[in-house]
């Protein structure tokens, strides 16, 4: 049984340490604001100039000047700070963000990330803050469906789409598995309940290792 993307977001959130500063990118990553582990203080950064972003709020209670990267209305936690865009990205490029959580079109086995252009000549591209985050955050976690709706893989040998950054991705959290990227390539470090490793490999375009704790089982 695979994880829903909300469950995958919650699984990722479990790995965010106490006291960490975490940027949430547009799309699925913004879900993480709603599923942080209770009792853990994690400072969420949003590129539009918020440190201390809180969970989403209903539209009826929205202050439309308190929004996440995807323009969804959110709350501010006590202690939140507001700053302008150049400061927000100085924080990002300056190495002050521990983890950036981003979406992906493709990730290569070397951790190269492609997530800003489908390169079809007709669809608008949209780089947003992705290149700054991929260059500046200490860790880049991807939260994404494991494969495209047609079953074609997102984790591939080499990215075909234009790159966001080389060697940036350190973890990939999907509906099927948690995958660690390292010098030896991608390794499955956790499978969703009842998902066989073989199914994950079949939906992946490059060879995966399977590490269970310290013990390699594949």
């Amino acid at each position, binding site marked *: 049984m695979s994880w829903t993307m909300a469950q995958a977001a919650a699984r990722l959130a479990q790995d965010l340490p106490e006291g960490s500063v975490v940027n949430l990118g547009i799309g699925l990553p913004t879900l993480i604001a709603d599923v942080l582990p209770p009792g853990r203080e994690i400072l969420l950064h949003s590129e*539009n100039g918020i440190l201390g972003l809180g969970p989403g709020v209903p539209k009826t209670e929205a202050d439309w000047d*308190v929004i996440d990267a995807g323009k969804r209305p959110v709350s501010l936690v006590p202690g939140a700070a507001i700053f*302008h*865009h*150049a400061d927000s*990205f100085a924080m990002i490029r300056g190495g002050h963000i521990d983890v950036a959580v981003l979406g992906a079109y493709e990730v290569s086995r070397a951790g190269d990330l492609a997530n800003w252009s489908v390169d079809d000549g007709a*669809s608008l591209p949209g*780089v947003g803050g992705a290149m700054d985050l991929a260059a*500046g955050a200490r860790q880049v976690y991807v939260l994404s469906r494991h494969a495209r709706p047609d079953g074609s893989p997102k984790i591939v040998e080499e990215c075909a789409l234009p*790159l966001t950054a080389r060697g940036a991705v350190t973890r990939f959290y999907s509906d099927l598995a948690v995958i660690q990227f390292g010098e030896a390539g991608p390794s499955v470090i956790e499978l969703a309940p009842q998902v066989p490793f073989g199914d994950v490999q079949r939906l992946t375009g490059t060879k995966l290792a399977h590490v269970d704790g310290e013990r390699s089982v594949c």
Partner: protein
Amino acid sequence: MISKQVAFDAAMSGIADGSTVLVGGFGNSGEPIELLEALRRHGAKDLVIVANNGGTGHSGLAALLEAGLVRKLICSYPRTSDAVVVERLYRDGLIDLELVPQGTLAERIRAAGAGIGAFYTPTAAGTRLAEGKEERVIGGRGHVLEHALHGDVALVKADRADRWGNLVYHRAARNYNPVMATAAALTIAQVREVVAVGGLDPEEIVTPSVYVDRIVQIGAPA
């Protein structure tokens, strides 16, 4: 006596065809919609617009684009939901789009306001968005040379001002607005409220008055 407060249409006086216009906002938050409407009425054409997004729906920035007044859009993320106008213009080849990483866009504008000609950033090194730009290795990492981005005009949205042009903002509607206010030859701010000089705590002023040329109060007669 210094007073920078003017009416909406008077605020557009002197904006010429071909101007580069910095437009604040992140999506609709902090977007100076009323100033954009006034710019559309003013009718200057062949504009180069610098903004985070490419407008949504049919108002504000989208209306300016739809009126055919914009030659080029320099932005980071035009692909927002309901970006119907910019999507059509792009598909039909009717607009020149320069895509800039968001932090590089903000820093290029900041550099313009701070008298910095250009800077090296690791953002976009080795990617298509660095093509044609000088790259060099600094501290073992690839960096891209990015130039300051000046505006002829900046349109910004703030919450409160005094007649000198000191500005404070509301929440994350701040976003690009204070940065853009520093970087244009003519900075025009729309505000919800104008307070007496001395009515803003010096500690809370985000944009000091030196950066602001004209103030328009929302709800005041055009």
